[in-house]
């Protein structure tokens, strides 16, 4: 044995040591630490790093909603709904440590108005406030008389003397109108569509995104639903909660890991066997993929401390690329002279293999330029996986596969011949006509292409869940958690005043039907300024010495003493109201989430909108303009515009990557470099044209796939251009085998129910097929090849 013979063995041993470390680390992670992949879909979304207050408001709104499970139990009649609700609660009652019932607190419901009584003089409904400014004194005397003599005078709070003109009653009615939910018989009641519903709200104790919580809570909720329907067969149960969506997404991703991973493996095993008629290449290919997967997992965990389930789903498609290196070596071994030993063969193949890895890693790392943490993980995971698989091929394959190990199988014999009859690109008219036709096809397809960056089109929750969500939102008239106004000010008073200025504008939008109403803390606690103005209004218009109160006394025969006493009583209910004090009362409980308090040195609050129409978003955005401290927030629109911006940016990144790869390959392939890249570029252009014809809109995920296609396609370009002298038809075989496997892997990704992955998969499927078919067209005839001599 010479030195050259010993070095590969030492390298193989060293690599064996690394692989042992990986195995140990993985065993420790999965068996010792019992790690579980993340299923938080929001991890795929970019962090809003621009504005901490805005970010805080969003987490605030989302967090308060995220852990909640809202259930409506409905029946034709209230008592049936009650029975069904009791059956529902009974099932969940023993699991309070997992999901706890939010008791509504009878006391707080009954007392919420009495806690506001000391401030009643300043709590005036908007209609009444307007009437106070506009109506004559007689109007108020008449109104008080009607109230006085009527037996059932509508909503009435306290004694007549507490609210003779119905101002506080008007205000309370207005507040009650902010939600259709009412306490009834110790339950919460809401009605709609001919049914009466009991509203039950639960809080989830563990995170809605923890896999364990999903697995234990979802069956419990199903059980409770079944129990309710058993108690009252006609009952309707509507459930909504982030945990349900998370569980559905998690289940789908787990299912897909199985189909895509297993389908991919079966395909590759079959292909390899048909080509090499041996189990050894299969085992070795699997070995390289396995080491790649374990290595990527270990390092990703060390780097990020977590792994997302979707990263694993995407990682499953890694199989499609990681095999290329092994296949390239194996195909050459099959075609090479038996006198050439494997380490020397590898040394000859190393430059091609190296460039292949370089191009693929450039392709994958393009994904890391996106703002999505999830995609960054995927990029790093994939790039690392490829490096590990590549190193396994380089370190182990030459030692494990000797010159006589492989025999050509049935598929290899059949397929090899095809290359001889394959059309080549030349300047002949016979060759230029198809090129011209293709150009027309591409131009037509591109002209039909539309783009769509709406984040909602990426929604993949089961239709039933979405239908329930919509119905529940309508019944509860709940405000949107992702579209609202953010109001900031130096002090609490300033925030409340700015809210009031905003509300004056929103009132016209309510009249115009753009929104049904709004929720704001200033509805409950007016600014000091407004409190003073209202008190002055009441004093001026109602309690004046010869005003409506005095006139009322004359009509019913009460003396001036009564007038003085009543006026004094009303004025005594004008204690200044402070937000901090209100926040401590039970009445504030449903509205506390609207107040952010102090963030980054400023006070901030949220004005939420009920019954918002999507078409009205531009009008709403405009309503916030020009008001200092008021900002319109549209998280859906925001994310959609980020997706759009990155779709455009990634388009440039793809073009840039072509340039970088071109420059990286230029020293080796010189004037042939364009031939390496041309099949991939052509395939990308045609794939996008196909999208245009299929009526699909271009999304960020299509563009990301084009980036990856560059990484994969360049492999094939390199294989075909590499060593035309010694390789024979081995490169063609390697490309075919790789492309077929990649298509299997990515084609299955195209079956994913997650729209983003589906877009990605379909683009890869069409693109890879096209690269495979196009690659041989760009080979130069043997006699014109000026191959760089390879040092052996």
């Amino acid at each position, binding site marked *: 044995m010479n030195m050259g013979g010993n070095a590969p063995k030492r390298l193989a041993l060293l690599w064996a040591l690394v692989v042992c470390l990986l195995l140990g680390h993985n065993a420790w992670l999965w068996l010792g630490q019992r790690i579980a992949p993340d299923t938080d879909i929001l991890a795929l979304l970019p962090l809003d790093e621009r504005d901490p207050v805005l970010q805080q408001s969003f987490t605030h709104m989302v967090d308060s909603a995220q852990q909640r499970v809202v259930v409506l139990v409905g029946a034709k009649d209230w008592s049936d709904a009650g029975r069904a609700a009791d059956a529902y609660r009974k099932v969940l009652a023993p699991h309070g440590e997992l999901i706890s019932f939010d008791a509504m607190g009878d006391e707080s419901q009954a007392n919420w108005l009495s806690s506001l009584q000391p401030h009643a003089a300043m709590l005036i409904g908007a209609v009444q406030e307007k009437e106070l400014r506009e109506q004559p004194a007689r109007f108020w005397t008449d109104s008080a008389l009607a109230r006085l003599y009527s*037996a*059932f005078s509508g909503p009435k709070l*306290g*004694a007549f*003397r507490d609210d003779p003109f119905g101002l506080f009653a008007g205000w309370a009615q207005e507040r009650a*109108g902010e939600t259709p939910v*009412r306490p*009834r*018989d110790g339950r919460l009641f809401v009605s709609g569509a001919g049914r009466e519903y009991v509203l039950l709200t639960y809080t989830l104790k563990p995170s809605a995104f923890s896999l364990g919580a999903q697995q234990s809570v979802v069956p419990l909720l199903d059980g409770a639903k079944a129990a309710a329907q058993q108690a009252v067969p006609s009952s309707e149960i509507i459930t909504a909660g982030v945990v349900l969506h998370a569980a559905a997404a998690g289940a789908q991703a787990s299912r897909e890991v199985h189909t895509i991973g297993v389908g991919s493996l079966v395909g590759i095993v079959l292909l390899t066997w048909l080509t090499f008629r041996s189990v050894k290449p299969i085992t070795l290919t699997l070995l390289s993929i396995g080491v790649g997967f374990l290595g990527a997992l270990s390092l990703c965990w060390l780097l990020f401390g977590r792994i997302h389930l979707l990263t694993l789903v995407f990682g499953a498609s890694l199989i499609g690329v990681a095999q290329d290196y092994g296949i390239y070596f194996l195909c050459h071994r099959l075609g090479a002279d038996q006198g050439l030993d494997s380490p020397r063969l590898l040394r000859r193949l190393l430059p091609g293999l190296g460039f292949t890895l370089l191009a693929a890693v450039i392709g994958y790392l393009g994904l890391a330029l996106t703002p999505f943490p999830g995609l960054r993980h995927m990029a790093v995971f994939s790039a690392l996986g490829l490096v590990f698989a590549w190193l396994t091929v380089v370190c182990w394959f030459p030692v494990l596969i000797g010159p006589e190990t492989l025999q050509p199988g049935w598929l290899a014999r059949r397929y090899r011949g095809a290359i001889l009859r394959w059309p080549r690109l030349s300047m002949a008219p016979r060759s230029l006509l198809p090129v011209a036709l293709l150009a027309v096809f591409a131009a037509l397809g591109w002209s039909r292409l539309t783009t769509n960056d709406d984040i909602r089109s990426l929604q993949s929750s089961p239709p039933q869940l979405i239908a329930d969500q919509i119905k529940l939102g309508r019944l509860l008239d709940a405000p949107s958690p992702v579209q609202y106004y953010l109001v900031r000010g130096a002090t609490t008073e300033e925030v409340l005043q700015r809210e009031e200025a905003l509300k004056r504008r929103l009132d016209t939008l309510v009249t115009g039907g753009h929104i049904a109403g709004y929720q704001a803390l200033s509805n409950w606690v007016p600014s000091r300024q407004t409190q003073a103005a209202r008190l002055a209004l009441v004093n001026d218009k109602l309690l004046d010495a010869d005003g409506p109160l005095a006139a009322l006394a004359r009509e019913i025969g009460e003396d001036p003493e009564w007038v003085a006493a009543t006026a004094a009583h009303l004025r005594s209910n004008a204690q200044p109201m402070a937000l901090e004090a209100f926040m401590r009362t039970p009445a504030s409980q449903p509205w506390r989430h609207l107040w952010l308090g102090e963030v980054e040195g400023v006070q901030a609050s949220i004005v939420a909108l009920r019954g918002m129409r999507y078409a009205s978003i531009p009008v709403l955005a405009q309503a916030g303009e020009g008001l200092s401290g008021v900002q319109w927030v549209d998280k859906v629109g925001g994310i959609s515009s980020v997706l759009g911006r990155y779709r455009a940016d990634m388009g440039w990144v793809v073009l840039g990557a072509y340039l970088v790869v071109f420059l990286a390959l230029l020293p080796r392939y010189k004037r042939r470099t364009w031939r390496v890249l041309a099949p991939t570029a052509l395939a990308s252009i045609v794939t996008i044209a196909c999208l245009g014809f299929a009526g699909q809109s271009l999304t960020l995920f299509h563009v990301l796939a084009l980036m990856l296609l560059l990484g994969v396609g360049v492999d094939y370009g390199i294989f075909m251009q590499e060593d035309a002298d010694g390789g024979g038809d081995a490169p063609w075989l390697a490309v075919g085998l790789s492309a077929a496997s990649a298509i299997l892997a990515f084609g299955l990704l195209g079956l994913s129910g997650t729209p983003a992955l589906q877009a990605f998969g379909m683009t890869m499927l069409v693109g890879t097929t096209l690269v495979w078919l196009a690659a041989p067209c760009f080979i130069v005839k043997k006699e014109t090849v000026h191959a760089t001599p390879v040092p052996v």
Partner: protein
Amino acid sequence: MKRLILAAAFALSASGAQAAAPIAKIQAMLAKPDQLCGTFSQTKQLAGMKKPLASSGRFCVVAGKGVLWRTLKPFPNTLRLKRDEIVHLQGERVAMRLDASQEPTVRMINGVLFSLLAGDLGQLDSLFEVDGSATNDSWKVSLKARNAALARAVGAIALDGGAYVRSIHMAEESGDRTDIVFSDIKTGAGAMLPEEAALL
């Protein structure tokens, strides 16, 4: 042992029957006409006022339609309760309108008032504890709201009557009291005046 269980079961059913017996008797006593109109006189004694406030007017209860409450003296104003709305008319002007779509409890309120005027005690049972006594031709009932919020709003209610409700007495927690006495009760097609039929 067997005897004990039997006795317990008997005791339970007996206590149930005891509570329901006068109510059933009262229900049987009440005429349930499709239309019922009459006059009322109302006296209110409000907290902080020396003099009681007297008013009078006409009322109609029409099954399946609603209730019309017309105060004629000293100031005319009309309250109209239909299934889905409460409207308060001052002359021609709508002084207040509550709609079931904006206030979901409108149907419940109207149900209660309709039941009160028609003496339909069975309907009141879900919201009130009903306690009553009855002789051969008259009855008395007191209602206590089952939940605190309702109790705050309407207070304690007492009714008495024979074939029809004769009087209603309401005492609110705030100290305001209302007494309503009904008379001239007519039933059947001619009970409603033409202007009343137009309103309801």
